[in-house]
């Protein structure tokens, strides 16, 4: 087992290094803006002296790499800095927003993953049937539509015309769990529809690829029942590609969530970042960008690790 642990450790290290470099990129990008936080905060009212003083107070008068290390150090302590817009501590807001976004994404994933896997496997098993061809057309249409289109259609029909669900997903700290589910159902469905289509197509392709292997045909030639061929022969080898598909689509979900949050006015990290970009509130932009990137890197790392763990050649080396 030790060789596997070594490979896993290597991957994890690689993930950390990537994250580290990403943080450098984000920091450098933001530092390219003319002017800095001190000027932004004081705005028109600032004189050269007050700006210099504030700069010193905020620790902005030191060279770039020291500023970077300070920033990084602060983050490890949970201090993301202060928002330029309203002066509040970013760490507090981000925590809440991030957990809201995770809630929404998880909700969508719980619906999307099982549906996509089952429908995708069926489409592969009944390849070129009417079912499969319909699925093909529907999924292409689905991945081609922008999230806001799907969102507004759902809102118009389900929320406005039918009145079944609220069109604004504003949840607060004191909303009950069921209440949360009710309000986030529509945004979750929106996310699901687009994400599921991607997942379905990729699952179908992976299973078709799997079924074309010689050992599947061999199992049939050995007189195994079709059910056994699928469950005993195909499935153990399907984990690797399926896991890969699922995790990569989860990474996609992380991005799709941004538009959905804006449409439904959902208090998540995506909406926070969009607002911050519009207002040029750079500390918030920096922080939320970092968190999104970290989530993405983490999900890719998980995909990598799971595909190693589900590969029989790596599990049992020569």
């Amino acid at each position, binding site marked *: 087992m030790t060789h596997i642990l070594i490979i896993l450790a290597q991957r994890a290290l690689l993930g950390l290094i*990537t*994250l580290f*470099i*990403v943080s450098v*990129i*984000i920091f450098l*990008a*933001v530092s*390219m*803006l003319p002017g800095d936080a001190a000027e932004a905060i004081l705005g028109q009212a600032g004189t050269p002296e007050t700006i210099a003083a504030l700069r010193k107070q905020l620790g902005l008068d030191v060279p770039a790499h020291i500023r970077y290390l300070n920033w990084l150090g602060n983050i490890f302590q949970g201090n993301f800095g202060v928002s330029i817009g309203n002066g509040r501590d970013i760490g507090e807001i981000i925590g809440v927003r991030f957990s809201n976004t995770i809630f929404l994404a998880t909700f969508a994933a719980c619906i999307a993953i099982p549906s996509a896997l089952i429908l995708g496997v069926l489409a592969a098993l009944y390849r070129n049937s009417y079912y499969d061809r319909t699925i*093909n*057309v529907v999924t*292409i*249409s689905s*991945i*081609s*539509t*922008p*999230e*806001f*289109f799907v969102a*507004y*259609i759902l*809102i*118009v029909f389900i929320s*406005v*015309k039918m009145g079944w669900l609220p*069109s604004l997903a504003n949840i607060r700290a004191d909303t009950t769990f069921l209440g949360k589910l009710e309000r986030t159902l529509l945004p979750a469905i929106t996310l699901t529809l687009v994400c599921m289509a991607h997942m379905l197509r990729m699952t179908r392709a992976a299973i078709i690829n799997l079924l074309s292997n010689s050992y599947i045909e061999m199992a049939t030639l050995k007189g195994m029942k079709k059910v056994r061929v699928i469950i005993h022969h195909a499935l153990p080898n399907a984990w690797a590609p399926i896991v890969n598909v699922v995790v990569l689509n989860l*990474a996609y979900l*992380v*991005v799709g969530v*941004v*538009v959905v949050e*804006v*449409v439904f006015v959902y208090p998540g990290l995506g909406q926070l*970042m*969009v607002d*911050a*970009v*519009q207002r*040029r509130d*750079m500390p918030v*932009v920096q922080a939320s*960008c970092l968190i*999104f*990137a970290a989530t*993405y*890197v983490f999900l*890719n790392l998980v995909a990598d690790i799971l595909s190693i763990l589900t590969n029989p050649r790596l599990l049992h080396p020569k």
Partner: protein
Amino acid sequence: MISKSEPSIVTSKTKYFFTELMGAPLSAKIGILIVVIYIFVALFAPLLAPFGESELVGKKYQPWNNTFLLGTDNLGRDMLSRILFGARNTVGIAFLTTLVAFLIGGICGIFAAVVGRWIDQVLCRIVDILMAIPLLIFAMLLLSIFGTSIPSLILIIGILDATRVFRISRAVSLNIVVMDFIEAAKLQGESLFRITIREILPNIFSPLAAEFGLRFCYVFLTISALSFLGLGIQPPTADWGSMVRATADLITFGDYTPLIPAAAIAALTVGVNFIVDWFLHIHSRLQDEL
């Protein structure tokens, strides 16, 4: 002379293409029709539109009537005209961006595959790092820094998307680079440049063409999403994404107007996807047979 028992398959390329075209599934034909319509509208928008792109012609939020077939938007501009002009803006900008992505990513990808060694490793690492941040997020970050002018939009999205193009063009080029005829060309004394252009490029054209379609769709949707979020193409330029945003309030009254520009986006993407799907289907079938 060669005995008659040796088979020779005679195919004419143009004839083959038309046979395939006639035998294309309905979805592909619809896709082609859609694309043709869009190109037509984009080219002839000034002639087709009843009013100017940003002309204030009436009261705000007018419902659909005889003068303004699709009503007016939040500032009193004619929706129909803006949608027609939006074709050239949204589609045009997305197309240019995809071109930029392909030029940068494609050339780098082929270069990495042909030259190999440490240059390949370095480029791959750079691309890996750039792809570690999700594109939309990275784009939002860079747009907030460099501004949302059209050239900046095209460059930022173009460079970010070039990473995806890099990977695929490198992959298909590597498949060709290991073939014996490349080695034969080297031994003939051909320059690397000539080998790239005359030996490799013709063989990777098909998969790259399909990828162009797919990247266009992705870029198109991303730019629309950014415009919808207010971070992309700025008003008063007519752009479908921002038009959805501008009329979004009407949704709460059950008005379908905001759905129209959104549907315009969806229709083109669906059409291109159908075409690419059909194209990949033929191409993979050809690969199996040869």
